[in-house]
């Protein structure tokens, strides 16, 4: 500790060099923390109930299945209930993409029975089930648009097959809450309305994008998935049934390969920053040849000189990591309010930098500084006094 002022004074000596190196480490840790927080949020998103399967068109989600499939799926042994669910892609105003939110047409009674994570007061649930024009919204959505029960809204679909002559109008029947402890990652910003209303409005031509299938025994996932798909193997519209986690992973951006990409990016950035920091520290130590000679002459052992150089690296890494972590937390809190990006972020469960990721981020920053300082520290350790004095 008594050498801490000595180390700090050297870091302060060249503010620009220290600041830019610290900023580089901060960027690295910021990237790590935000990417890993996103991955953690993704994992929450990818961990839904294990008793739910999703059946969709075998070729692509873009294509829809006949309504008649529902009864046949419901008859498969082990299936508890089935609910049609179509992503509607509705917007209040097509000219305001910033106001986008996710909305689904669902067979409400069965859907709400199998999705216990959407918690509705009983009166609101009854009102919703009783009114074909009714809809329920997440509390985060209600806060965002200052909606309350009883308000009416209109939505126009962005999916050509779902477009109607006029926007569909809805009455907000209820606002659902979520229990992020019991059901972590539950989306708080969805809107659900009745599939029947949607089907009739589109002239019964909409079809079904997904069937949500609840099964009695999660150990029967594979058997029941195959059984469902076998039903339609020889049909024009073949199906593909998978667990909800697999389904979410396969939709758009999700899945192990994307996570791998994110981690790969973080690793590449870390390595680059390591090289930059190591070069900066080597330059700093080279400039202090005379000083190292003096310290050794005064009686500072080679080991102590090595520790001092490493200490600079560690301190630099710690400062950079702290700055990066703070920046990451700030950005994650601010991102949902940023236009366009915020719309994507709000589709995921609420993000915050978990303590474990923060701790790992700090440890990485300190390690970066330590490793970057290692080579110049070893050079200083091995340098002979007479050689250093001669060079100085």
């Amino acid at each position, binding site marked *: 500790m*008594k*050498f801490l002022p000595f180390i700090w004074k050297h870091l302060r000596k060249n503010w620009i060099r220290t600041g830019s190196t610290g900023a580089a480490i901060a960027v690295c840790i910021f990237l790590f923390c935000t990417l890993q927080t996103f991955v953690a949020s993704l994992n929450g998103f990818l961990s839904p109930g294990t008793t739910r399967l999703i059946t969709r068109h075998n070729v692509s989600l873009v294509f829809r299945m006949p309504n008649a499939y529902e009864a046949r799926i419901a008859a498969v042994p082990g299936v508890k209930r089935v609910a049609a669910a179509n992503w509607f892609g509705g917007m209040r105003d097509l000219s305001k993409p910033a106001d986008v939110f996710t909305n689904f047409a669902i067979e409400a009674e069965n859907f709400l029975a199998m999705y216990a994570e959407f918690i509705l007061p009983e009166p609101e649930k009854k009102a919703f089930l009783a009114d074909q024009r009714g809809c329920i919204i997440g509390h985060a959505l209600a806060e965002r648009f200052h909606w309350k029960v009883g308000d009416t809204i209109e939505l126009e679909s962005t999916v050509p097959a779902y477009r109607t002559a006029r926007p569909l109008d809805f009455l907000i029947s209820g606002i659902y809450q979520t229990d992020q402890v019991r059901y972590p990652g539950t989306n708080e910003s969805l809107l659900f309305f009745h599939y029947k209303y949607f089907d009739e409005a589109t002239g019964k031509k909409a079809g079904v994008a997904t069937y949500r299938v609840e099964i009695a025994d999660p150990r029967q996932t594979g058997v029941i998935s195959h059984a469902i798909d076998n039903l339609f193997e020889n049909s024009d519209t073949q199906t593909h049934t998978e667990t909800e986690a697999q389904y979410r992973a396969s939709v758009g951006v999700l899945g192990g390969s994307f996570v791998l990409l994110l981690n790969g990016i973080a690793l590449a950035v870390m390595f680059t920053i390591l090289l930059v920091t190591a070069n900066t520290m080597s330059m700093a130590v080279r400039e202090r040849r*005379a000083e190292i000679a003096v310290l050794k002459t005064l009686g500072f052992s*080679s080991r102590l000189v090595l520790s001092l150089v490493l200490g600079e690296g560690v301190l630099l890494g710690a400062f950079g990591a702290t700055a990066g972590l703070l920046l990451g937390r700030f950005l994650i809190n601010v991102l949902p309010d940023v236009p366009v990006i915020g719309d994507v972020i709000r589709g995921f469960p609420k993000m915050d930098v978990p303590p474990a990721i923060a701790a790992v981020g700090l440890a990485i920053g300190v390690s970066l500084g330590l490793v970057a300082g290692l080579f110049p520290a070893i050079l200083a350790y091995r340098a002979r006094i007479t050689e250093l004095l001669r060079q100085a």
Partner: protein
Amino acid sequence: MPAITANIATTTLTVNVQGVRKVYQRDSQEIVVLDRINLAVPEGDFVALMGPSGSGKTTLLNLIAGIDRPSSGRVTVAGTDLATLSEGALAGWRSRNVGFIFQFYNLIPVLTAAENVELPLLLSPIGGKQRRERALTALRIVGLTDRASHYPRQLSGGQEQRVAIARAIVADPKILVADEPTGDLDARSAEDTLDLLQTLNHDFRKTIVMVTHDPRAASRAHSQKHLEKGVLLDEV
């Protein structure tokens, strides 16, 4: 010779160099920098090592200070045979026994004068308050208490050298070694520095070995030793 030998035998020697040789290897060539050097410096003595450039005087000073090792022979300083010490032990020994004064002062630029003087004391077990007090005492001896909080860039050359001398004496070493201490100073500052070294020798009984090529500086010493091509000539 017998009389001189007898004198050396009865006087405490701070420095005793016996049969020292220092050889450097450059590719296949052997370069002899010091050849069979014998030097005895009694306690409280002030010795000037003189000689032309390349004569080996700085090399000899480095051996005495323990920052280099001879190729053969023995160097005993303050009762310790330096060859018996490992590198780590030698560093510790230097911190307690040797005060080094460089030609170009070599103060640490990011530290104030007081912090520079305090630097050797960081290696001792004494606490922060006591370190600061001793640093101020050393600065008082060299007459620079009012410059304690100044950085080296705010000091003149002569003042920097005095701070360097304060740093060299703060740990109360057995021996001061000075390598061309006036080499980078103007005449007035050089005189002040030499006055200070004489005071340290006379009033504080510090043993001083000084390398210089300046006859005026050498004249301040009790005795002068001449080196020529790595060989110590007769005492003057």
